[in-house]
């Protein structure tokens, strides 16, 4: 038999010190486990000893070196391909940035008939119509919205309870579609509503105009009604009935729900998930309470720390995985956003977990009175007297003045994770985001000190949890891959 091998395997392996490190960041996941990430979030799990061997050039484990080469964490001197591929991937990840501002939030009224414990907005009673947005204000806000380069415009109606000003929703929707004839953008509409006021007319409108409904559902009845108070204590009944009607009339994917974690939720993660599954909802967004508005003052059910929330999150995620194993499709939305960042080259641009931050360039908020805010949280801060994130008013500000204002550019540039202290060296930087509003609120500057930041602790906790589960559980890894798409 002839020997058909001309080049021995050893000739293409790496000798000691035969490689160079490419940009590599690492994070300890446990006593014997470290995750290494590259510029775009591709990752490899190693032991601390292996990391030292790779860094010092003494590693002889060819399989490990090959895995690191495959994700461009090391390269052989003289090679150009790894840097070229990294550059392509980074460019792909950033390509959405020039298409700024896809989300436009219209606060069509501040009125609300709920009095939720954790409400972030200084709501007004349902009768005071001076807290409604006018058509003239809406028209000017639309003019600004259509100046955005983004080919996708999502118009989200918020409040208060936006359905209390339903005629304006109807008007804005029609007007936006009329204006879009000359723009050809991909237009989408969402109403963020507690559904208590949902009726046939509104459902008909949503069906005809392809408008989605996003509601709040905190879980089982007693938990939900304890958080979300309204005369008659029937918020849960109203929400559930509304979800069912909407699913029936609009289809199962046209209504989604969000939950807010209060201390009463902390021990009830599985029940909350089951409540969603019982309603046929396919996604749960396990959200911590936000530190703004009423909630910041500590009376809204926010009396828990990050670690306690992370335990809750882990329990909820376990229940979601269990449902999937039983062939009940269910997505944890926050994990799915992170999965996309971990396992693909695209950043979904989720406004609360993206860098540069989502303020202004990811979302703009038009308050009922025409004031423009860089984010929903920025509007809430203003309600309590801090107008840092007010970018102007639709009646007096031009698009250029809004988008190029110091009030937007300073927090954006000062918070970019890739250059922020401690973020720049963090293995999770590709997965994380910049939140200048949070850090302004809690630390007094846009960058914050990450060692003291609850935003950092919470997200580090979530990334660590997701990575450990992916490392240990092939089923979860596969689930994350599906969520990433």
């Amino acid at each position, binding site marked *: *038999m*002839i*020997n*058909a*091998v*001309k*080049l021995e*395997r050893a*000739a*293409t*392996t*790496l000798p000691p010190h035969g490689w160079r490190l490419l940009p590599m960041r690492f994070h300890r996941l446990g006593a014997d486990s470290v995750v290494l990430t590259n510029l*775009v979030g*591709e990752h490899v799990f190693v032991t601390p000893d292996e990391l030292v061997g790779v860094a010092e050039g003494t590693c002889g484990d*060819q*399989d490990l*070196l*090959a*895995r690191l*080469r*495959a*994700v461009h964490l090391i390269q*052989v001197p003289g*090679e150009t*391909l790894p840097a*070229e*591929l990294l550059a*392509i*991937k980074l460019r792909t990840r950033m390509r959405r940035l020039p298409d700024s501002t896809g989300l436009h939030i219209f606060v069509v009224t501040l009125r609300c008939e709920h009095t939720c414990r954790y409400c972030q907005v200084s709501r007004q009673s349902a009768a005071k119509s001076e807290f409604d947005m006018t058509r003239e204000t809406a028209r000017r806000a639309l003019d600004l919205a259509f100046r955005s380069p983004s080919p996708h415009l999502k118009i989200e109606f918020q409040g208060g309870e936006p359905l209390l000003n339903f005629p304006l929703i109807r008007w804005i929707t029609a007007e936006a579609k009329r204006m879009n004839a000359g723009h050809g953008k991909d237009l989408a509409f969402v109403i963020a509503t507690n559904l208590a006021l949902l009726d046939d007319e509104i459902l008909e409108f949503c069906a005809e105009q392809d408008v989605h409904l996003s509601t709040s559902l905190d879980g089982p009845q007693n938990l939900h009604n304890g958080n979300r108070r309204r005369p008659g204590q029937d918020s849960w009944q109203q929400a559930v009935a509304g979800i069912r009607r909407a699913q029936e009339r609009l289809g199962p994917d046209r209504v989604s729900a969000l939950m807010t974690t209060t201390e009463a939720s902390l021990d009830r993660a599985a029940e909350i998930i089951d409540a969603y599954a019982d309603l046929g909802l396919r996604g749960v967004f396990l959200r911590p309470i936000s530190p703004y508005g009423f909630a910041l003052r500590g009376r809204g059910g926010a009396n828990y720390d990050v670690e306690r929330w992370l335990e809750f999150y882990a329990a909820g995620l376990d229940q979601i995985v269990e449902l999937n194993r039983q062939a009940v499709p269910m997505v944890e939305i926050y994990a799915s956003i992170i999965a996309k960042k971990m396992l*693909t*080259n695209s950043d979904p641009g989720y406004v609360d977990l993206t860098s540069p931050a989502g303020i202004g360039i990811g979302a703009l908020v038009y308050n009922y009175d025409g004031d423009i805010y860089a984010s929903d949280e920025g509007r809430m801060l203003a309600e309590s007297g801090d107008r840092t994130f007010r970018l102007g008013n639709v009646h007096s500000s031009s698009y250029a003045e809004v988008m190029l204002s110091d009030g937007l550019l300073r927090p954006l540039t000062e918070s970019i994770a890739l250059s922020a202290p401690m973020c720049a060296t963090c293995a999770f930087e590709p997965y994380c985001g910049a939140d200048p509003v949070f850090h302004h609120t809690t630390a007094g500057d846009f960058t914050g000190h990450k060692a003291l930041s609850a935003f950092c602790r919470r997200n580090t906790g979530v990334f660590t949890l997701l990575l450990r589960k992916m490392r240990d559980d*092939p089923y979860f890894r*596969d689930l994350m*891959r*599906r969520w*990433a*798409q």
Partner: protein
Amino acid sequence: MLKLKGRVDASELASPLADDVWRVCLPADSDGDGDEGPTKSLACLVRAGQPAPPGYGLYLMADPEMGTLAVPGTPRRAIPGAPSPVLKLGPELAHLSPGDIIHVPAGARRVTVLWKNSARHNALLLTEQCDNYCLMCSQPPRERDDSWLFDRAKKVVTLLPASARSVSLTGGEPTLHADALIGLLEHCKQVAPELSIHLLSNGRRFAGPAFARRYATVGLADIMAGIPVYAPEPGLHDFIVQAPGAFDETIHGILNLASLGQAVEIRVVVQRHTVPVLAGLATFITRNLPFVAQVALMGLEMTGLARPNSALVWADPADYQRELAEATGILATAGIPARIYNHQLCVLDQRLWPYAVRSISDWKNDYLDICRSCSVRDACGGVFTTSGNRLSQHLRPVP
């Protein structure tokens, strides 16, 4: 299984026949249009008892028992006194049918079928030279000058029947002969612009932007380059293809093709070295080459270099189903079409059946005796006859 080569009896030839390529036709379909090339390049297939009409450049006698061919009347366009040559086909060529294209070399002792009109796949070999020397190569490279293969391919393209839909251009490494390849592609564009072309290449030459641009500039509507990538990093890939620097060139080549809007398929031969890196390779493709049109995951054909290297490359498909399923899942989830070639359904994880393609060419596939009672035989590609006995130990009829 069809034999693509067969003996012929040329004893009836009045004068030596020049090396040429012919399209087979029946007496009825004389194409109507032919004083020139077409008629001359048509070989008329005459069966027992049929009269042979005049005017064809070549006559093929299907039945070796038939005896002498009678050409009635005086051939109007044939050169007086020199009747068109007649070849008697050996029994292994009884399958020849209209639309097939054959090569009759000078001397006319053997006929090679270059195009089988009824086949799902037809491939034209353009060269046997290659700058890779893959451990499992089924078509080991040869150094000799074989530039005549390009000329022959050109003639085949000219003669293609109207029903021809797709062709694979294969080697060796066709891009080693840049001018000849570009010339052939331009010829395809001219005479068969609708043809779907699958060019099998190691992709290395496309690393040169000038050649990649030449290729793209031909402007064929439906061409895809099928390029092998065997590992997500150079160390293993270069070893498998036995060529240092090959990975770097191949990936650069793929990137160049993509940037020119050219369709690329990635071809992965599943063998002992690639099994452990299949998932890593699939992930590499989703992150670095997400634009590819499809990924073919191919079972070994145990012929050529794969035989002497058998111990080095052989992996029984039954032993790598977990890895194959994971890689397929990674690609499919990322929206990259994955296709599994050359795998018998009985050794393929049932979840992977939707990805399986009946890929083994008609002229080299076969079924074993145990396949007779198999319920999915018709959906299965069978086994490579070229693989001899080197088959999975787990082949069995699916109940």
